[in-house]
């Protein structure tokens, strides 16, 4: 919504702040080259941004992202058997590796995964024999010669068409999809099961993990995220609400209920509380680009795990430790169930995750230091340098520090993405998308 001139009599502020629920961004993902950035929202729409290519000779600004295509991916649905609505909210988008001129992406809501083909058309054939310029069929008697249609350039058109619909694979809500490195299969995970699909086959999928107990009364743990290994097509990992990670090898058996490796941090008995389990629930898991490490996010921390060591994480980063004393209130207002995502940078030297009050955090793995940044339009003009922020937790109070009780818990940074090669990040803040670029170190370097 635009910036209205504020009438002296009528206060339009509430209109400015009103966010249509459907516009809330629910997922962000770069493609493998970083030229395309896709966002999904609660209204079931996908918006694809494309990076402007730099013209040779221009003074060196990296390209900016502009809207490339918008389409409606999922529609609200209704489960007649259970008398429940199926939300059209896009839970995840994953790009397929590019194989030809067209781009393919998978988008999913709670129940259905769809494969979309995004293709450009910038030429059209002209000079048909049987049709005139407007497309009307010519009178055959007027055709006296034969001519070959010629392709003429035309305005760029981006077409998005659904190519596959993978339906009826999940009883519970899909939380993750992950494309395999073999380029042919992908997995989709819901609360209790993980299925593996072939990209060309929509009426069948393999169930590779099933943690549903025989008696649902015994259910105490659910699957929260899952991902394929970036290089080994037989390995995948899934996380649970109890804070465990399970690495599974599909060569071991068809049904990977028995993990190959279980990653679990032993609980500190001294710090146990009624909220211990809830805050240990892993909300996101990501393999590093190297495939050697895992990054997980639970409510208060982000942890890096070495695949070779299952006894505990090798690094733990406190995202917002100051919330530990507020867990009861956060449980009351349900914020404790927020699922934050986490991402690696391209060289696996920096990790990033979101927090409240439009803050997001970056941690340098080498130094162990973290910074807090803010994604909020009032404070950032285009091309302005991001200031680091701080939450005041004691000691000397600096100007600009935000008190813990002043944090806005409705402004949560849950979804984000990091460009696969450069230091460009995309942050989803409610219905706004922020794209930040590092001008100082535009290319990823080990710092």
């Amino acid at each position, binding site marked *: 919504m635009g910036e209205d001139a504020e009438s002296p009599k009528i206060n339009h502020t509430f209109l400015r702040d009103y966010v249509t629920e459907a516009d809330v961004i629910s997922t962000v993902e770069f493609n493998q080259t970083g030229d395309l950035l896709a966002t999904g929202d609660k209204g079931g729409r996908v918006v694809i941004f494309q990076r402007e290519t730099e013209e040779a000779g221009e003074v060196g600004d990296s390209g900016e992202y502009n809207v490339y295509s918008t389409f409606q991916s999922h529609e609200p649905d209704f489960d007649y058997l259970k008398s429940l609505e199926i939300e059209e909210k896009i839970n995840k988008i994953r790009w397929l590796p590019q194989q030809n001129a067209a781009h393919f992406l998978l988008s999913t809501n709670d129940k259905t995964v769809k494969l979309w083909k995004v293709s450009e058309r910038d030429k059209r054939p002209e000079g048909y024999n049987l049709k005139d310029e407007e497309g009307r069929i010519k009178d055959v008697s007027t055709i006296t010669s034969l001519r070959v249609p010629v392709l003429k350039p035309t305005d760029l058109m981006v077409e998005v068409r659904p190519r596959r619909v993978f339906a009826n694979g999940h009883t519970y809500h899909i939380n993750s999809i992950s494309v395999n490195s073999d380029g042919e299969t992908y997995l989709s995970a819901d*609360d209790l099961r993980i299925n593996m699909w072939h990209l060309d086959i929509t009426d069948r999928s393999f169930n590779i993990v099933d943690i549903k107990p025989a008696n649902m009364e015994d259910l105490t743990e659910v699957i929260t995220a899952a991902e394929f290994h970036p290089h080994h097509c037989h390995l995948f990992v899934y996380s649970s609400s109890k804070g465990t990670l399970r690495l599974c090898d599909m060569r071991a058996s068809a049904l990977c209920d028995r993990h190959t490796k279980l990653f679990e941090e032993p609980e500190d008995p001294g710090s146990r509380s009624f909220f211990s389990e809830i805050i240990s629930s892993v909300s996101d898991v990501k393999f590093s680009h190297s495939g050697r490490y895992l990054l997980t996010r639970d409510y208060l921390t982000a942890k890096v795990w070495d695949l070779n060591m299952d006894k505990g994480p090798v690094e733990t980063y406190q995202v917002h430790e100051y919330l530990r004393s507020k867990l009861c209130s956060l449980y009351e207002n349900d914020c404790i169930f927020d699922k934050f995502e986490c991402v690696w940078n391209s060289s696996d030297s920096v990790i990033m995750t979101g927090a409240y009050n439009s803050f997001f955090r970056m941690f340098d793995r080498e130094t162990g230091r973290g910074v807090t940044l803010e994604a909020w339009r009032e404070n950032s003009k285009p091309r302005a340098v991001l200031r680091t922020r701080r939450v005041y937790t004691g000691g000397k109070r600096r100007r600009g520090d935000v008190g813990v009780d002043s944090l806005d818990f409705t402004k949560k940074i849950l979804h984000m993405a990091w460009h696969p090669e450069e230091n460009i990040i995309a942050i989803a803040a409610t219905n706004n998308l922020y794209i930040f670029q590092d001008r100082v170190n535009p290319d990823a370097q080990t710092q």
Partner: protein
Amino acid sequence: MFPKGTKRKFSDSGEEAVCGGGGGGDQGPSAPPAPSPAVARTLSSSYSLQRQSLLDMSLIKLQLCHMLVEPNLCRSVLIANTVRQIQEEMTQDGTWQIMTQALAAAQCPADRLVATEVLCRQTEAAAAAAQAGQSPKPFSVSGLEEGYHSEEVVMDGDAEAEVAMSSLSPVSPQLSSASYLAGPFGMGPCWEDDEEDADCDEDEEEDSEECASEGEDAERHHLRADSRTGEQVFGTFEIKHPAPPPDPALEELFSDVDPSYYDLDTVLTGMQSTPKMGPYDLLESLSSHGPTALSSSATCRSDLNELDHIMEIIVGS
């Protein structure tokens, strides 16, 4: 930022002591050192108050589910695990028995707070009744799509009554009769409806119908509660395959009618029902005791603000 509800005013310091405070480690009650009755007395009152408040909050969260969209299973499981943890700890303390008995002895006002439309699509119900001599089976998540379990309500004859609640069958034939039974035998009908309320399996097509009927049952039970004799009957019994719930439309029509005549059937069959206190029982008692002070339990809320708070939650959802 945070809603200024009764919880704040009730135990600001208590809350901070239990849930707040600085220092490392999660804040919150640590497990009691020994599961002996003496432990219950040594636990600080603020701790047990806070634990109770957490239990209340969790039960309300489990009840307030979305009407149209399936509730988040992960959230439900985490809340259920929390309730289970509290339940286990309170059982070890011995405070579970105290609380349930206190609620059993409480007067139940006629007005119901929890709207029937709220009591729907539960993803969990309390676990099946424990076997004799064992600690109550932990609170658990019941079948989302299958598992229509028959209800089992078991009660021992003395103060060490097992506290448990069975999972409910949406097609529970004898459930209504079980509930009705409690009336004339004066065993706190105000919470027996929990069993009916809790059985709204989200996969049951007639969920809303079920809930509506159960809510209406609750209304009747309240009315009956006022007219109960106060006589308490103990006995070991088991009720399986509860009766099918009545037609919700009829429920609404006859919500003011005293259904004690229903009891005759079950009375004549010699079955007795004294529902155990389970998580949903607690929720019902919470919302039903209203302005009436519960004398014997320090852990129960009894002020109007609490009711308003609950109403806000209900209406707000």
